[in-house]
């Protein structure tokens, strides 16, 4: 729990993007696009570098909160400004800063209207996301969780596709609906902790303190239900996923990258951070049902993806399928499953983020995403074809790339839990390969069927530049995942240990 750097690095990290928004608002004018873009780039790169600074001081052998910053915020109701980082959140933080930076760069050539608002919103969104992962106080967590909604709404609604208004308000309402029910769960935990039979006797919003609360099963079930809705909608878990295809398709490229890369992880982060440690018996009770929903999501998502004619929508449904894997791994509740799930969260962020970037590139050139409009692109854009191939294989889970490590661990965990979980999940992998390879064949191979495609330019230097970090990570995690796994080990072991806690005696109430 030491802050060896001597500076409040987490606060700096969290609010640097917000400072960027203010800088853009105050120091630039509407007609200075280059200046706006430069400021945005500087702040997002600075945030990324700052997040890298945490790594050397991060201790991998402890599950305690590190780099803790803690001051009272609203003492009247016991709310604290409490930031901390541990094995569960560190990789997600790095993913967030990396993808935000890449999304920023990818937007430079695409967004031409109302740049101030756009880059301001992107940066504000980054603050919200980092705050969610860093908060160790429930009210602070909830504040950042909701703060994310408004910039995302604007990103989809102002710079999105043709049906953007519908998609934006659907995203906003769906997510808000889940969040407000989660608020009631948070309040319930607060007051229940004030009862000496369950908690410390003083009501608190402090998350590490609430890890020790012991509630009887029937109370846990209700609170789990309220949290579940909020997180399941974010994941998205079948059948709460219907907002996702619209939001992803209508959002601008950078919006989709952030949405798929980071926002979806918040749901699974919520499950592993809150539901498993605080409500272990309820988690075990609901695990079979949630695993079934996850499996349905895996297969259903894959089948629907296969039927799509719009590349972006196909990728959106593939997200549903992939995140079904993550949820399956989490609720297998064994070491392999949870580790695989956590790693797969990062992997999905990298590969699906890359996929959306690639789709964006081709959309920028042809202004269409329909598969039938393409064909034979590999002849015209070889570099693009290579990048797409690597990303595709990463998404499928080919050994050697990152997807395989995560999926293998999840399958191992699922197999240890129930044999048929793994059996169904494996079919999902096969289907995943099917739709991805078929997509690649239709878009890249064969003859160039449309005249417009003959004159397409290959990837520009900038495009290759922002894809490189993602490609490097795909290989790195695929070939040598140990450093990444080691960051998470201690916290995952601690979470699993709290799942084995003896249950609350039922004669109390």
């Amino acid at each position, binding site marked *: 729990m030491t802050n060896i750097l001597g500076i409040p690095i987490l606060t700096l990290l969290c609010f640097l993007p917000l400072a960027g928004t203010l800088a853009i608002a105050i120091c630039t004018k509407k007609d200075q696009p280059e200046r706006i873009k430069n400021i945005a780039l500087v702040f997002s790169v600075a945030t990324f570098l700052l997040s890298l600074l945490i790594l050397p001081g991060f201790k991998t052998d402890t599950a305690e909160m590190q780099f803790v910053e803690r001051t009272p*915020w*609203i*003492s*009247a*109701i016991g709310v604290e400004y409490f930031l901390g980082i541990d094995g569960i959140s560190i990789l997600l933080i790095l993913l967030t800063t990396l993808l935000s930076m890449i999304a920023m760069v990818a937007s430079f050539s695409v967004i031409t209207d*109302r740049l101030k*608002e756009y880059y301001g919103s992107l940066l504000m969104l980054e603050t919200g996301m980092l705050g969610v992962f860093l908060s160790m106080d429930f*009210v602070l967590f*909830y*504040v*950042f969780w*909701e*703060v994310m*909604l*408004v910039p995302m*709404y*604007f990103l989809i*609604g*102002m710079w999105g596709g043709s049906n*953007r*208004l519908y998609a934006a*308000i659907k995203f*906003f*309402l769906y997510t*808000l*609906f889940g969040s*407000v*029910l989660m*608020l*009631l769960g948070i*309040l*319930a935990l*607060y*007051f229940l902790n004030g009862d000496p039979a369950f908690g410390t006797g003083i009501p608190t919003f402090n998350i590490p303190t609430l890890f020790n609360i012991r509630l009887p099963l029937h109370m846990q079930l209700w609170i789990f239900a309220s949290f579940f809705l909020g997180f399941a909608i974010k994941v998205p878990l079948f059948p709460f996923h219907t907002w996702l295809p619209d939001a992803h398709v209508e959002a601008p490229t950078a919006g989709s990258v952030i949405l798929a890369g980071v926002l979806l992880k918040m749901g699974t982060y919520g499950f592993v951070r809150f539901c498993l440690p605080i409500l272990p018996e309820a988690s075990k009770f609901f695990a079979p049902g949630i695993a079934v929903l996850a499996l349905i999501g895996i297969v259903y998502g894959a089948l629907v993806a296969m039927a799509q004619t719009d590349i972006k929508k196909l990728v959106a449904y593939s997200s549903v399928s992939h995140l079904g894997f993550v949820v399956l791994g989490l609720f297998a509740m064994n070491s392999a499953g949870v580790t695989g799930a956590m790693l797969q969260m990062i992997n999905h962020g990298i590969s699906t983020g890359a996929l959306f970037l690639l789709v964006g590139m081709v959309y920028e050139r042809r202004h269409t995403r329909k598969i039938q409009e393409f064909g034979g692109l590999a002849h015209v854009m070889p570099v693009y074809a290579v990048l797409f191939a690597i990303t595709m294989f990463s998404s499928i889970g080919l050994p050697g790339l990152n997807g395989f490590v995560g999926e293998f661990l999840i399958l191992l965990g699922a197999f240890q839990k129930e044999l048929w979980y793994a059996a169904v999940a494996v079919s999902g992998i096969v289907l995943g390969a099917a739709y991805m390879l078929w997509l690649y064949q239709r878009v890249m191979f064969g003859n160039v069927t449309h005249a417009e495609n003959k004159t397409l330019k290959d990837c520009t230097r900038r495009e290759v530049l922002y894809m490189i970090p993602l490609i490097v990570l795909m290989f790195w995690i695929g070939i040598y995942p140990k450093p990444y796994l080691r960051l998470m080990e201690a916290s995952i072991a601690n979470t699993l240990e709290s799942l084995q806690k003896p249950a609350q005696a039922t004669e109390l109430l």
Partner: protein
Amino acid sequence: MSLVLPNIPLSALLPEIVLTISACIIIFLQRPFAKVHTHALSSLAFVSCIVAIGFAMNLWNINYSEFMQHFLTDHYAIYFKSVLLIISALTILISKRFLAITKAERGEYYGLILLATVGMLTMVSGADFITIYLGLETMAIASYILAAYFRSDERSSEAGLKYFLLGAFNSGIILYGMALLYGATGTFNLAEMHSIVAGLSEPGKIQLLYFSLIFLIAGFGFKIAAVPFHMWAPDVYEGAPTPVAAFLSSGSKTASLAVIIRIFLVVFGTVSALWQLWIAYIAALTMIFGNIAALRQTNVKRLLAYSSIAQVGYMLLGLASGTTMGSSAVLMYTFIYLFANIGLFASLVFLSKEGETKEAVSDFSGLGRRHPLVAFAITIFLLSLIGIPPTAGFIGKFYLFMAAVNAGYIKLAVVGVLASVISVFYYMRIVVAMYMEKSAVETEKDLSPSHPSTTLGYAFSLMLFVILTVGVYPGPLFDLARESLSSVASVKVLD
């Protein structure tokens, strides 16, 4: 025979005295005053509000026990006086431009606003029902006239008449409730009633108590426009001049809520089983109906009327919980809500031009491009009313829901949060118009508003500042609300 004059500490009444004197000057001496300077009248009104706030805050540490029979100056009263004076001051700030555009600036307007405020200040300081009724009627009559201010406009006259007829009838109902309570307890004084009601045992008297409760709920429910006593509000807010609608929706609601809390916690505090469930049902109905009815509105003033009906529903959640937490949540929320509410009415004033007062959602189209700062402020106001962090509205709603959950009203809290989600639909419609729709008029002449008003700009800045600051650092407000409630809470028995 010598005349014994009562020993009235006039300094306790300074806020009311200042406002009354200013109102009289403004009404009777408007001709000479207006000749001095065009802004003389509104400036005098505004300054007197600020001075009155100063005097009120001065009373915080002083305790006037001799006056306690009729007129209280405890922390609770001072808190609400300050809130009400802020409401008046903001209303005057936004009225200036509106009256210039509609060419209707007369001394009577500012005078009536000040007099209505005097009524509200008296109401919240009432220690017995006579004083409360006195303040109530002063506020009401001034409001009726203000609602009908545009005599020649059909809608305004209709609004005024409707408000007057229903309001007069309502005053009768309240009076009857008070009379029944007098019959049951034998006194008008609230503090005395508390101990009498606690020990009431005769079945006849308990029946009288019960009936008086019904009448008072109905009567005051009308004043705060709770469902099912809300029918007058949309029509009156739509017809009344925009700043008057702002004043009514914030001022009379806040004052009435202050009185309601005092009455229910002090007089009926020991028999909460009688009224808590009623208030809970009314709160649920109000939240649900207010939000659903607002969904179809295209006239912003009607939309804001239903929105303020719904907001009152959330506040009734706090009252229904019957705890200190609940009531201090209501105190906080009245302060927080007024800024966003008046802010939205101010945005209508901002959009209005000479000869056309703007009231439709479509009038907001393209505001994001034309006036980005104003559009940003309006967005923050809307987010505050929905209850999204980091605005003050989130803190207010959070505390209200916290109180509801603490008191065990889980289902009510669920209704409340779901109602908040429904409210997103109609609040965001304005945001969509501002940012995602093209402006209907594009010529330069139409783009810039006539009569650019710096006072309106100050008002916007102040409201934006308060909402964002309280949203990020609400601690002092929490403590203030708790402290203000302590003088009332010590009398009641709950919690």
